């Protein structure tokens, strides 16, 4: 059993942490106040290679694997959960091309996506719901060498930033009735729709994708017609869900650091409040949530890197880290007292950001369903 990181992974953590502290941290307050997307930060991340962590070397990526990606997203999430989510959804959008794309699709899109020349996303959720994938209503009808797509996706991260992205649309009925496509934002008939105003993850763009007779070449089908459900579930389980988990882990880490630093510095009754047992209990609760979430998150990433199936582990990590992030942010606010509710300080933002992670890539209830499938095999 080996619980340590390699020196390469340690160097990655240090590099990403330094980047996040130097380039993202100064923007966090402005992002939260205005919800503006810091495009310059995204460009800098692209130049340094952040987008291509899961893209193989031969297509210009880092070929880094899921543990490396988790390190990257935890460190960015520690400073800004909004930027972690922006980045993780870029990885999510790229992943179906990596796992199921044809050689031509890989050669055409992976290099520009790995370099961040085009940003990405993956559109599944519709107004009728997200986790009920078979219930989606967007259709893709074959006409000659093209598919004509009609419908509307909502709550899509990077909706207004993405240049090359994946979507799932109905090409038939039942579990083989869904197909995944690569769409470019410059295709006629596509436009981003409304932009959402969220209480958390502000500075991370979320909105609609609208398809009105959007014509997509048949070469853009990922895998085969009818593979859409499998591809969507694979991408969400192995990339989208762990991406949110890693961002939530970053929030918990931030809660721990904020709460410890504040409690050591805040003096009441003649001594720092960190010396009061009532405060220490809250600090240890946050610390436990951090360590437990960390073990679950990195363990599932490690399983994925070994090529093992880990849907239940991904669900458990997502459940624990996102619910933990909400708990820890609440406790951090309690330790800060009234200061915790002030817009100038981090704790209230951490809570608002954590709330957004609860529903993304499946609610806690859906995570329980996924875990139950494995739990029921235990005897």
């Amino acid at each position, binding site marked *: 059993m080996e619980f340590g990181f390699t020196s390469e992974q340690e*160097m990655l953590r240090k590099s990403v942490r330094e980047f996040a502290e130097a380039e993202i941290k100064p923007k966090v307050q402005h992002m939260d106040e205005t919800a503006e997307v810091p495009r310059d930060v995204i460009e800098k991340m692209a130049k340094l*290679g952040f987008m291509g962590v899961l893209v193989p070397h031969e297509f210009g990526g880092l070929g880094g694997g899921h543990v490396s990606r988790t390190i990257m997203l935890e460190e960015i999430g520690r400073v800004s959960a909004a930027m972690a989510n922006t980045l993780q959804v870029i990885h999510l959008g790229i992943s179906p091309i990596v796992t199921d794309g044809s050689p031509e699709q890989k050669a055409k899109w992976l290099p520009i996506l790995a370099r961040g020349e085009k940003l990405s996303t993956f559109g599944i959720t519709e107004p009728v719901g997200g986790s009920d994938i078979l219930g989606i209503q967007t259709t893709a009808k074959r006409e000659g060498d093209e598919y004509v797509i009609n419908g509307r996706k909502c709550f899509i991260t990077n909706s207004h930033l993405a240049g090359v992205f994946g979507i799932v649309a109905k090409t038939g009925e039942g579990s083989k009735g869904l197909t995944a496509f690569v769409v470019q934002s410059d295709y006629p008939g596509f436009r981003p729709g409304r932009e959402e105003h969220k209480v958390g993850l502000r500075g991370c763009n979320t909105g609609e994708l609208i398809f009105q007779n959007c014509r997509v070449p048949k070469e853009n089908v990922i895998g085969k017609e009818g593979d859409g459900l499998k591809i969507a579930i694979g991408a969400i389980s192995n990339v989208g869900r762990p991406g949110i988990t890693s961002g939530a882990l970053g929030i918990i880490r931030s809660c721990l650091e904020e709460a410890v630093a504040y409690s050591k510095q805040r003096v009441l009754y003649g001594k720092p409040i960190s010396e009061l047992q009532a405060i220490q209990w809250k600090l240890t609760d946050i610390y436990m949530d951090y360590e437990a979430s960390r073990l679950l998150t990195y363990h599932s990433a490690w399983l994925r890197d070994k090529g093992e199936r880990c849907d239940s582990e991904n669900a458990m990590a997502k459940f624990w880290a996102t619910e933990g992030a909400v708990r820890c942010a609440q406790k951090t606010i309690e330790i800060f007292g009234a200061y915790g509710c002030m817009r100038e300080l981090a704790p209230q933002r951490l809570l608002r950001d954590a709330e957004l992670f609860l529903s993304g890539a499946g609610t806690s209830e859906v995570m329980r369903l996924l875990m139950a499938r494995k739990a029921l095999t235990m005897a």
Partner: protein
Amino acid sequence: MPPVDSIVCVKPVPDSHYWSQLTLDAATKTLRREGIPSILNPLDKHALEEALRIKEKFGGKVTAISMAPLTAINNLKEAIAIGADEALLLSDKSFAGGDTLATSYVLSAAIKKLGRFDLIICGNKSLDAGSGQVGPEIAEFLGIAHMTHVTKLDFLGEGHIRLERALEHGYMTAEARTPILLSVIKEINIPRHIPLMRISNAAQAEVRVWTSKDLDIDSSLIGLSGSPTRVLDLFLPEMKRRGEMIDGTPETASKLLVQRLRELGVM
């Protein structure tokens, strides 16, 4: 312009995020660094950045060099990840405890052995000890010119540079010939972030390690015993608050206050 070969001196220093965990060892009069993660001295990153910019303009080789314990291999790998072509660590028990003179003696002996170079670039001072002496002392041992507090560097032609350095109340522009040693301050540039693509190769890169046996040095001039500096005491300043009431009218009270501040040496 022919290529320019640069040697960049780098030092691992305790990560400032962990300074609250640093303690003093009263017996050896040193900082206890065990368990405190180390980082590249921040100004040394500016030195490395300048060397990399020169390399990108004119070609040449950038060598990072450090005298430190073996754990510094990771710091030197970071220098390679940032962009250095190669790295050299000088590490030997006999080097331990050296002051600036003993340290610069060892570094200069290694630089002599490395052979030809155009520039040696250092951070102006380190985050931990902060003496700012090692750079100039290396230059003296090598018998070359040096400039400290450098804020700008341009090549006018082969072996001919113009540089700007910060003075207390202004700037000085100077021209000089290479080889020369420059100590830079943070105004000179903004260091780059590590391109993630370089991390994988840097982590596997070979960092050469030289011990005292690899160098032509006088063993009486190295380490603690070879250091003329003696640390007499090392202590944390005691911070105390104390109140003092001054009575009287505003006029008399203010006079008494000024008198008291003068006595305390504040005014």
